[in-house]
């Protein structure tokens, strides 16, 4: 390493950040302290016909739920599950559903904390579809991050075209959207995404709990320190 000053590098490595979301539930699972049983899609399809107490709990966002869902499932978005756990039928055999099985596993851990046993649909909606099982299709929408990319890209292209062909002042349009994307990338807060989330066609989209919106899911680096060691 070029940087030989131990104290300086240690100080750079010691920067504090925000803990990853749902850390305690993730740790319980990863340490084997609790494990929610899973049910394979084909088995669930059979169970659904045989078990009248089966309760399919879909913890995806309302937008995802409206786009496609397993017939007969009930939407309780992941972010609201803690507060709404007591709304679940008392004697139900709960199977939690999400897109891949990850959110459902954390949701099942959450339910276990309040004394509710739940199974997880293995592979989530994607696994259900891979197994060739039917989904109830709803209205399809572009994800907000793709709407942002589409609008910003169109505006930049338009600004450059009009700035070149009509009047150089139109370049300001491209500059404005370029600056907006740069700001969003640097801060993780995207003004255009916030506006789009309030549009009627996105009305069902769940807002993040802290009221911010990022242009890309998982944009935050939960495991990286700002400090960069040099060799």
């Amino acid at each position, binding site marked *: 390493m070029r940087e030989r000053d131990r104290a300086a590098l240690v100080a750079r*490595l*010691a920067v504090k950040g925000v803990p990853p979301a749902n*850390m305690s539930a993730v740790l319980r699972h*990863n*340490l084997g302290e609790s494990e929610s049983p899973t049910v394979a899609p084909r088995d669930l399809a059979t169970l659904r016909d045989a078990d009248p107490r089966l309760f399919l709990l879909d913890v995806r966002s309302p937008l995802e739920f409206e786009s496609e869902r397993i017939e007969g499932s009930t939407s309780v978005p992941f972010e609201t599950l803690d507060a709404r756990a007591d709304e679940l039928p008392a004697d139900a055999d709960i199977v939690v559903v999400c897109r891949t099985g*990850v959110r459902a596993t954390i949701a099942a851990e959450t339910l276990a904390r309040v004394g509710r046993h739940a199974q997880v649909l293995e592979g989530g909606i994607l696994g259900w579809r891979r197994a060739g099982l039917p989904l109830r299709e709803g209205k399809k929408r572009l994800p907000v991050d793709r709407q942002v990319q589409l609008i910003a890209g169109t505006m930049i292209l338009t600004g450059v075209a009009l700035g070149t062909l009509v009047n150089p002042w139109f370049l300001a349009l491209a500059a404005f959207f370029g600056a907006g994307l740069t700001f969003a990338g640097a801060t993780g807060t995207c003004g255009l995404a916030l506006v789009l989330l309030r549009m009627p066609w996105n009305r069902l989209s769940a807002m993040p709990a802290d009221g911010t919106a990022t242009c890309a899911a998982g944009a935050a680096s939960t*495991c990286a*320190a700002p400090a960069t*060691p040099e060799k």
Partner: protein
Amino acid sequence: MATLTRPATLSIETFRAPGEGCLGYLVVDEPSRTALAIDPRLDQVGAFQETLAARGVRLTHVLDTHTHADHLSGVRMLARRTGATVMAHAASKLAGTVERVTGGTTFELGTSPVSVLDAPGHTPDSLAVLVDGHLFTGDALFARGAGRTDFMGGSASDLYDTFRRFEALPDATVVHPGHDYAGQATTTIA
């Protein structure tokens, strides 16, 4: 998923989680058709199994480089489905049947010797895996960055010492990190 092939004995499949930059690896000893899985996510267990089946490879060992706090581990599910041995650092609190390893532990992956290095700093139970000039660093060292040390008993001082340990390896050692936050999945010690 990308495949990086070294002459004859070893091939490495990389499993990338879209959006979050998590990287998992399947290290295959080609002569013996046996494999070691490193940091498989829960939502990648199916993909690991499909790759094993497609390539006709038997999974013998599976491990997490540390206790992950940002995603669900697929280690136990993958082990259950394949019969592979679960390995974890001696400092890990992972419950169940686990083969504990620590810095200096060596084992055979078919014809390839595998060495475990202590890599504390990001977490106290962090380890790195060295096999045939490839170093799997987990969240200790990224291609252009370092793991955070501010939760789960992390220690910046320990992480510094871990870097020193990595620095002692040959410059040509290929680093395979647990994330590609900088958009770069591999680098070298040099």
